[in-house]
C-alpha cells in the first residue's frame, strides 16, 4: 500500500527539499511505495491524512499522525536513528 509522507519546513524551499529527497531515497532502498507531499508547516493540516509527518522545524501541534524531526538530514548528526524511526512508522 502506498504510504503518504508530509515533509514540511518553514518555507517549503530549502530544508524540506533535502529531507523529502532523503525520505524518497530511504523508501526506495527499502522497497516502500511512498508519496511525498512537500509543504510549509502552516499547510500540514490541509494535506492530511498522511502516514507520517517529517519536519525540519519545531511543531507543537499534535496532528494525530506520527511526527519525526528531519533535522538530522540537515546537520548530519543522528541520521541512522532518524532513518530507523521513519522505517518503523512506514513498515510497522
Amino acid at each position, binding site marked *: 500500500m502506498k504510504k503518504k509522507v508530509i515533509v514540511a519546513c518553514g*518555507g517549503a524551499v530549502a530544508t524540506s527539499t533535502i529531507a523529502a529527497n532523503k525520505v524518497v531515497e530511504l523508501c526506495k532502498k527499502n522497497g516502500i511505495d511512498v508519496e511525498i507531499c*512537500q509543504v510549509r508547516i502552516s499547510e500540514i493540516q490541509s494535506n492530511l491524512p498522511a502516514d507520517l509527518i517529517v519536519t525540519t*522545524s519545531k511543531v507543537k501541534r499534535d496532528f494525530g499522525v506520527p511526527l519525526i524531526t528531519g533535522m538530522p538530514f540537515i546537520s*548530519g548528526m543522528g541520521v541512522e536513528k532518524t532513518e530507523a524511526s521513519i522505517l518503523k512508522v512506514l513498515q510497522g
Partner: protein
Amino acid sequence: MIWETLKPALIFPGAEAASYEEVFQQVGGALTAAGYTKSTYVEALIEREREYPTGLDVDGWGVAIPHTPVEHVNSETVIAIAIFKNPVEFVQMGTDDETVGVRIVFMLAIAGKPGEHGAHLDELQRIIAIIQDTGLLQNLLNAQSAEEIIKLIEEKEKTL
C-alpha cells in the same frame, strides 16, 4: 557547481557581528545592494529566523543557513558566505530556545516560483555536504580571503 557561481564580493572572511540581525543586515544587505535580492529580503530573513531558526550544531561547529521565501529574491539563486571572528548566537533549527554559537553563515538567496517544490535539490545537497564536513568547516574558519574560501569549496565539490 556552487564554487563556480560564488562571487568574491559576496564572501566575507573575518566578519564581525553582535547578533544575527546584524549578520543579516551586513550579508543580506550586500545581496540586496548587488541586486540579487529585493529590499524586503533582510526584514524577511529576520522574521523567518525568529519563527524558523536556521542555526546548526554540526559536531561542535556552529553553522547557519538563513534564507527566505522566493518572493524576496530576484531571478538568480546565489549564495553569500560569511566567516565570523567571534561566534554569533543563533537558535538551533527545530528548537525554540537552544542556541548555538555560529561562525560560518551560508546565506541562501533562493530564486524560483512561489509554490514550486523540490527545485535546486542538487545545489542544496551540495551545501548540506559542505556543512556536514567538519574538516572543511575548520579550513573555512582559517581562510584569509574570498578566493581561498572559493578554492576550498571547489576542492570539496570535486569530491562529491
